[in-house]
């Protein structure tokens, strides 16, 4: 019996590896799309863009009005 480099078991492992790859890409895509949908459902961005962990004086109306 000739020694074959590519055994049937390698084919099966390859299929399994690509299957896992597809599942992982799918999962990342799912979470990303879900995030986009959830954020867009929040509505008007002005309502929550203040809470950005970054000081943004330009979007605070009171300070702008006092100058």
């Amino acid at each position: 019996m000739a020694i074959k480099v590519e055994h049937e078991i390698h084919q099966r492992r390859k299929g399994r590896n690509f299957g896992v790859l597809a599942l992982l890409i799918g999962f990342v895509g799912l979470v990303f799309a879900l995030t986009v949908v959830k954020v867009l459902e929040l509505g008007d961005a002005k309502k929550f863009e203040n809470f950005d962990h970054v000081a943004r004086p330009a979007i605070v109306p009171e300070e702008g009005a006092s100058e």
Partner: protein
Amino acid sequence: MTDMTAHENPYEAGMGDYFALLKPRVMSLVIFTALVGLLVAPVPVHPFIGFVGVLCIAVGAGASGALNMWWDADIDAIMKRTAKRPIPSGRVQPGEALGIGMALSGFAVVLLALATNLLAAGLLAFTIFFYAVVYSMWLKRSTPHNIVIGGAAGAFPPMIGWAIATGSVSIESVLMFALIFMWTPPHFWALALFVKTDYGDAGVPMLTETHGRDVTRRHVIAYALLLVPVAIGLGFTSIGGPIYLTTSVILNLWFVKGSFDIYKRNDAAADADNYAVEKHVFKVSLFYLFLHFGALLAEAALRPYGYGGW
């Protein structure tokens, strides 16, 4: 020593073997009923969130199938119908099935909670627990009424679909649950009457073997009659309407008539025509469930045009 040493190790499963653990055919019914529960609810859901919700329910159902196959591998190996499943046939190791079942259960429940709400996720977690623990580990091998109580696991999906949309449980979702719950026993026992099973060899008590086939025939008609008020009652809720009610009345007459035919005859008569009536009623039962949920969907689809509902 040759290059064939790989054969000495356990068979390495392919992707398809793992997929078979999830019981794809059962999953299709789960997807359909969950989708109907979601779409008939009065609160609109973003299509993508709805898709993720139904996906989570399907994956959760698949995960409970994998846990069931892990627990039941010993009896699956004895019975002809199940001997070719991935674990008894040696394609998947029991530990792998347990791991996949647990991991996918966690994935489905957590993602459903994040994407929709805690009630829907809690119901899904309970469904998985009910199928894997209450049905598979406890009831299946201990009582001939295993199918009656175990049927609850298959009845939850429309209730979860409804909870995804509304965040609540209501009379409509409870009746959708009850419809599948009450439908499962006569559907399954009609099948058990004409399929020669080897549950007895595997030590699983089935009504046909513990109490006899005549008792099973009586149970089919009894549950078919108990199913009628549930199915008709759903027609008078907010998701019912003339289309549903008409469909339901016709289907219930058809199903009760068939179940009565099963009740009237005995095994001698059934042997004579190769269980034609039992096979017919089993087919009717499939139409019964599909068309009931189809009619609910039709009511919901026509509502925006002023036709569906009351």
